[in-house]
């Protein structure tokens, strides 16, 4: 489960010689990103491996969307697809509208401009991708110069200092090398690099997974500030539903390449409708809740092999409340209430 999944190239997006294009800022905070029926299939030794199987999502400016799910469910693949950063064996279909234009149909030139001016990704484990023999200031300056080739060395240096201060790393740290920084500081440097282009959309893939609680809280607070102060749209990816519930306006839970539940973050954690989302929420105890004291809860079994998915609910083999209907036909998202939807036969009416 751990070993085989790979992430697209580590590090922030890089696009040499990006053209400067005017940036259409979305008015009123709607429709920064719209994803419709996104599908990604990897060709794996001739066999198709469907990693994302029909995902619809929207994100407004100033909004935070959480994406949860266990390893291999397609979170990083989805993130990579948004900026067309997947390896060559990936086939992508559907629509990804960023400020109204379809990322999947863009020319390379336009795509490069988008990667620099509209959206950035902080990849999973990206902090390990910092070049060990260059000072972090130089690495951030390179990002700035790539993005704005005409900026002078002095301007770039000043901007490096500003970016570092913005993410809570003292400006003098620009002289430091990666090994002189802690994990949390490196992660913040990666966020500073992602900010070099003042993006409208930031995608952060497991930005706090390797960090301890205090540093995690620092990084999450920083991301929340960016959303509030600059109105960026944030997609936060994690397998820790408790992190997402506390940080995100909305959370989508993925299972086997599909969204199985979507709704406000706090409600998903406190009272999930889909049995998989319930199991994920129960995996993180609420301290003080005697029901979880000396009673850790997990979910037996493994996620399905995407190559062997048949019809029916993909969660059925692990589901404690499965019924005969579950394997008979495909179960799509249904309305739970005005705010939520979930893909389970036990839920409301088909959406």
């Amino acid at each position, binding site marked *: *489960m*751990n*070993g*085989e999944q790979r992430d697209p190239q580590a590090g922030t997006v890089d696009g040499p010689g990006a053209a400067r294009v005017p940036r259409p800022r979305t008015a009123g905070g709607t429709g920064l990103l719209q994803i419709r029926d996104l599908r990604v299939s990897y060709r794996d030794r001739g066999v198709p491996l469907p990693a994302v199987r029909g995902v619809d999502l929207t994100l407004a400016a100033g909004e935070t969307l959480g994406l949860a799910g*266990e*390893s291999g469910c397609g979170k990083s693949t989805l993130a990579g697809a948004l900026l067309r950063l997947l390896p060559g064996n990936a086939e992508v279909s559907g629509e990804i509208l960023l400020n109204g234009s379809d990322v999947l149909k863009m020319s390379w030139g336009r795509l490069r401009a988008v990667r620099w001016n509209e959206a950035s990704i902080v990849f999973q484990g990206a902090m390990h991708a910092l070049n060990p023999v260059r000072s972090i200031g130089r690495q951030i300056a390179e990002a700035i110069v790539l993005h704005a080739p005409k900026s002078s060395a002095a301007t770039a240096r000043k901007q490096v200092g500003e970016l570092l201060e913005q*993410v*809570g*790393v*003292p400006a003098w740290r620009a002289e430091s090398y990666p090994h002189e920084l*802690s*994990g*949390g*500081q490196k992660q913040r440097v990666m966020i500073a690099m992602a900010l070099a282009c003042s993006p409208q959309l930031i995608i952060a893939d497991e930005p706090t997974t390797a*960090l*301890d*609680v*205090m*540093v*995690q*809280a*620092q990084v*999450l*607070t*920083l991301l929340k500030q960016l959303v509030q102060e600059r109105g960026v749209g944030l997609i936060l990816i994690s*397998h*820790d*539903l*408790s*992190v997402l*519930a*506390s*940080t995100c306006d909305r959370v989508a839970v993925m299972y086997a390449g599909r969204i199985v539940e979507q709704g406000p973050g706090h409600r998903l*954690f406190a009272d999930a409708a889909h049995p998989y989302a319930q*199991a*994920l929420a*129960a*995996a*993180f*105890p*609420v*301290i*003080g809740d005697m029901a*979880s*004291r*000396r*009673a*850790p*809860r*997990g*979910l*037996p079994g*493994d996620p399905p092999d995407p190559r062997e998915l048949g019809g029916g609910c993909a969660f059925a083999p692990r589901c404690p409340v499965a019924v005969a209907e579950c394997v008979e036909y495909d179960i799509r998202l249904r309305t739970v209430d005005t705010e939520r939807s979930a893909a389970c036969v036990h839920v409301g009416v088909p959406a």
Partner: protein
Amino acid sequence: MSVSLHPVLEARNLHVGFGGRGKGVPPVRAVDGVELSVDRGQIVALAGESGSGKTTLARTLLGLQRPNEGQVLHHGRPLDYSSRGLKALRRKVQLVLQDPTGALNPRRTVYEAVAEGLRIHKVPGNERELVAKALSQAGLRPAERFFQRYPHELSGGQRQRVVIAGALVLEPELIIADEPVASLDASVRGEILALLLSLRDELGLSVLVVTHDLGLAWNIADRLAVMYLGRIVEVGRTEQVLAAPKHPYTAALVSVLPEATGRTPVILSGESPDPSRIPAGCRFHPRCPALASGLAQRAGIADRCVGETLPVLPLHGPHAAACLLSGHIGDGIAGAAGGSPTGLLSA
């Protein structure tokens, strides 16, 4: 649980340092005066942020690291550091590490991985039966179906079960688990923790689990010790420590848990305090929100916070914290400290 009757392993006034050989290079005081005991059938969690000395303490308890001062007692007797003594200790006290993938040799089957300990320690008996028993105790059933599998054919959770089976096969008294679920998925995490709990209940196993995950402590630990800069700053029954922390550091850790509701998070600025420069007075004072907010001043202890060396918390006894405030405001520390978060990004 006040007086311990059957301590399996104890740390007494333990100090462990590194380096300091070069000119002007101060030695790192990774473990700086620790008293800790793990009793028979007890699950103790050792929490604290990165670099606080948890792993160094665990390694010292295992005899993998020699203390500079103080000692480790196994059933009340000081560790025997001869190779024979250490070999005997390692049969009784087993280590389980964070990353099951790194702990397993990719070219060895599950059977070989589990049998290895039996061969090293020349354990008499039927090897196949012992291996099968350990695998099924670790929840891999029927065990024979896993014998010939290789690590890459297993999920992350199954790999961690194989590592645990490799420890169980020697019928240890104590397992020291360093972040045993940190690299595992949320869904698998609960399964592995439930396994540790059932091993304690069924086999009377003791567990010392090292983690920065307080939810893990809530899930399984009887006692919780919180470490800061090489020293245990708070210890007690898990419910007490988490529900009513007495030390401002513990209160801050609890307040930043994502699921903490209703509490203002106290986000400490800076990170990884430097164990080569442990502050004088209370070692937490440069980051202490109670000192910064004036709470310590109002309690009349601010001068002592920066000047007075605090005593080491005793080995046994009730819920206690190494903080001058703890006598003054008792259970109120979380609320009191929570009202005045220090600035996040002022590091």
